[in-house]
């Protein structure tokens, strides 16, 4: 039983919760962090790519001891049909820099490290503790939490909800609506283990260099979806995600999509001979700017996936989570330093600060993208990938057909599939959504 009162309680030990707890604890606040898993990370799932800049702003010397897998030197963006892939790739030796920009990580290990930093900064971390409800006073201000441990409520000036994407506590308490099936993707992932040197040979890597592949196409069977392959030190994270609403309507099974991806002729040789050691599933917020809920109230703030802060276009999530956790913590520290109460009015500072950051600016830029991709999923995820594959093959195959006829055939195929008006309209809408 915990009798003392805390400055802040953080619910959840993922990226946003750890960022918030660390930032507040290192500023001298009395912080209690509650995590339902056996250890921090045991309930957390991510691809995973970690962006250095956002972590540097929290722990500048993280490279000294954080468990990092590989720094990325190459990114491949693939458009796949059933037998092929086309696309673009970018590889640069510039990414072999003293302080690399992007790393692959393994979340269960990374989160343990991050949590150790929270404890070193003076935060109290309590694992194997599920928060069952928020405690509110007569004026409806959140004043603490109740857990499944023996003992009564635990009190704090402010509660940071870093409870993850489906956000049971906040939605049940009526602080925000439950996210909708059309604004969430369900991703499944396997961890394929291979010897380090095999990974390096297959992807042309040396030392800690890493490569990622992200793929759209017929692998998502007409649904809005994305396949991904990330190289870790001695393993490959391979997965695929699709919109929950699409999966439900199509009655598709994510593990069937994953097995099809594994057997795709472009992927199969990359994972050949691997030993699978884990299968994981997780929801990803895809609603973008328009899905961001109320972020603060009397005695509470919400951060990370629970606040639906995820940039689906750039596949950035954990950096938005970390940044929102840090900014919420900085806002709380600021209110505290003025001896202000943790009221809705004072905590509005968090949103004001977040609005000025890349988090909200990026999401606002792409505010129309989710609706575009989700309502035209069949065109963007099946029709165009097939057309692109045909066009590429037509261009490359030498069979005596005059080039002018080949070009005409490719143009005709695009017009037949989408009509002139359809092509122009898709291009215009895409351009506007990107703008």
């Amino acid at each position, binding site marked *: 039983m915990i009798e003392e009162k805390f400055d802040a309680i953080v619910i959840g030990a993922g990226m946003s919760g750890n960022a918030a707890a660390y930032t507040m604890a290192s500023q001298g606040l009395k912080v209690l962090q509650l995590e339902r898993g056996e250890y921090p990370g*045991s309930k957390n799932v991510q691809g995973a790519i970690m962006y250095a800049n956002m972590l540097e702003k929290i722990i500048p010397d993280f490279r000294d001891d954080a468990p990092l897998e590989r720094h990325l030197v190459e990114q491949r963006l693939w458009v796949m049909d059933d037998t092929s892939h086309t696309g673009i790739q970018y590889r640069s030796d510039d990414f072999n820099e003293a302080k690399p920009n992007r790393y692959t990580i393994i979340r269960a290990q990374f989160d343990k490290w991050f949590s150790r930093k929270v404890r070193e900064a003076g935060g109290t971390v309590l694992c194997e503790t599920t928060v069952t409800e928020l405690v509110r006073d007569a004026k409806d201000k959140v004043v603490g939490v109740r857990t499944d441990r023996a003992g009564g409520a635990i009190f704090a000036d402010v509660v940071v909800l870093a409870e993850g994407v489906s956000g049971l506590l906040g939605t049940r308490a009526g602080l925000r609506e439950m996210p909708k099936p059309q604004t969430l993707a369900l991703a499944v992932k396997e961890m394929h283990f291979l010897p380090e040197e095999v990974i390096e040979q297959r992807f042309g890597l040396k030392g800690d260099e890493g490569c990622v592949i992200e793929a759209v196409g017929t692998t998502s069977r007409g649904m809005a979806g994305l396949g991904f392959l990330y190289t870790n030190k001695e393993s490959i994270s391979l997965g695929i995600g699709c919109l929950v609403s699409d999966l439900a309507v199509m009655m598709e099974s994510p593990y069937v999509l994953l097995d099809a991806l594994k057997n795709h002729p472009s992927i199969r040789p990359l994972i050949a001979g691997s030993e699978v050691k884990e299968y994981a599933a997780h929801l990803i917020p895809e609603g973008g700017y328009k899905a961001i809920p109320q972020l603060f109230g009397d005695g509470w703030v919400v951060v990370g996936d629970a606040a639906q802060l995820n940039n689906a276009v750039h596949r950035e999530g954990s950096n938005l989570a970390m940044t929102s956790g840090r900014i919420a913590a900085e806002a709380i520290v600021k209110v505290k330093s003025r001896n202000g109460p943790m009221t809705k009015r004072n905590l509005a500072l968090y949103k004001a600060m977040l609005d000025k950051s890349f988090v909200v600016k990026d999401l606002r830029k792409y505010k129309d993208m989710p609706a575009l991709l989700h309502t035209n999923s069949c065109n963007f995820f099946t029709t165009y990938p097939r057309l692109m594959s045909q066009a590429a093959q037509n261009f490359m195959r030498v069979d005596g057909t005059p080039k002018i006829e080949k070009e005409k055939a490719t143009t005709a195929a695009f017009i037949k599939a989408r009509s002139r008006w359809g092509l122009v309209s898709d291009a215009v809408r895409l351009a506007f959504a990107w703008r």
Partner: protein
Amino acid sequence: MTIPLTKSRVEDKLFQNRYLVDPGRPHIKVRPHERPSANLLALTHVCPAKCYELNDKGQVEITPDGCMECGTCRILCETSGEIEWNYPRGGFGVLFKFG
């Protein structure tokens, strides 16, 4: 491209995972029903751990032992009241080694 998949293969995947099952305290319950709604029925396919299955009477049943706590079923069926979803007690449920 379609790879036929049997139940045993999903179980093979789940077999790799670590779980601490809380005996007698399932964290998800399906409300008794005559006929499942479209969303509840979809869970027999969409659930990544294949926790949901149809019984002989055409009703959906759940065995949440292999649940990875993704929350997909909660998103699809909690609002309608067809399922009740709570976090497992602290320390129980799936324990990801890698995540």
